[in-house]
């Protein structure tokens, strides 16, 4: 017997006090934040900043960005893990509280999660006007040798690969803009 999947519905414009309350100054405890760092984790600290642009080129002020990543040694947190519990690998940031509608994560550069795979971060995007969430990936411009071998990047139209690659804009800070539409429309995946 197969039951039908519950349909997605848009996150709408008013998620902030429920999903990212502390970021927006609401008196409700956040389960996740945009700062994934943990005192017990060793690795290269990085910042990932970006904006999400609509089809008219405006930076979207009411989107929610979630990231999911491996730790610096390439391990994902698994249920029941006893090691490295401090770094969950999950972060959330709304685009409505920063300057210029930016999102900004403080985290570690992930390790490669398997042979042949380049370091990457899974990104999930939600917003008013988006009826079903979208998945994309962050790769890193300074991993060009690994990126060239990565099977997921390799399956993407070469002309669109650059939309998945975060550029270092200053030491330790990468920029990853997301374009919902247009010539530079970000590659979104059917996961």
């Amino acid at each position, binding site marked *: 017997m197969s039951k039908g999947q519950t349909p997605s519905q848009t996150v709408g414009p008013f998620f902030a006090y429920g999903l990212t309350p502390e970021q927006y100054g609401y008196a409700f405890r956040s389960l996740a934040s945009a700062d994934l760092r943990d005192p017990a984790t060793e690795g290269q600290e990085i910042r990932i900043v970006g904006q999400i642009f609509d089809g008219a080129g405006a930076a979207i002020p009411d989107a929610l960005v979630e990231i999911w990543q491996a730790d610096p040694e390439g391990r994902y947190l698994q249920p029941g893990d006893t090691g490295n519990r401090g770094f969950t690998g999950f972060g959330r940031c709304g685009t409505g509280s920063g300057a210029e509608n930016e999102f900004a994560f403080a985290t570690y550069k992930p390790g490669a999660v398997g042979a042949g795979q380049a370091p990457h971060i899974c990104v999930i995007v939600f917003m008013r*006007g988006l009826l079903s969430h979208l998945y994309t990936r962050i790769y890193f411009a300074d991993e060009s040798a690994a990126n060239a071998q990565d099977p997921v990047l390799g399956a993407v139209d070469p002309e669109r690969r650059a939309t998945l690659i975060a550029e270092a804009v200053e030491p330790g800070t990468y920029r990853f803009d997301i374009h919902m539409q247009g010539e530079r429309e970000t590659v*979104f995946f059917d996961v």
Partner: protein
Amino acid sequence: MSFRARDWSSHPPLLYPDYKSTGLRGATRPLVPLPQGSTETTGPHYGAETLSPADADLTLNGRSSGEPLGERIIVTGRVTDEDDKPQAGMLIEIWQANAAGRYIHKADQHDAPLDPNFFGAGRCVTDAEGRYRFTSIKPGAYPWGNHDNAWRPAHIHLSLFGPSVATRLVTQMYFPGDPLLDLDPIFQATPAPARDRVVSTFDLATTEAGFALGYRFDIVLRGRDETPMERKP
């Protein structure tokens, strides 16, 4: 191990002209198939130990001087996958408008009163059988700017991860018999055969005499592939 594909005959499309803000925000190019690897089959886990006692009772967690106004409701249901397997220990986050149709969100400018005793967000975790339950106030309908005299039907937003990032789901639960459902482009964007899956049912068995009306809302997440393909990572 991997999860079955998102069933696009159940989920709304990315571009739906009647819902105007999809016009500049929905992706226009075909989604690129991504074979699931460990990145997609893992995900965050927030169990019952991460919650506070009042998180599942929205009639309690926003009080300042008394009880919130409105009809008390109890919402309960099961979270399963497509094979009806219960999804235990899964976080559900919810947020909603108050009884007057006003969100506490600073950007909500609807001219309806805030309730000093209602915050409108909460969360709970499913038990071993996949059941969840929270207590709240029935949200009111509210106007929005999509078209002339547009009103959102009463709804509660729900967010779930399920067992992995591939099973991530954000949805809305509606109430049975709401005349606004036929007029709402967000609800109508959902493929017709799947629409009733986002409408709760009134449930007398959940209703508590003298206290609150009960609604049932079951949630179905993507199932696991029965015949996992040999995949490159």
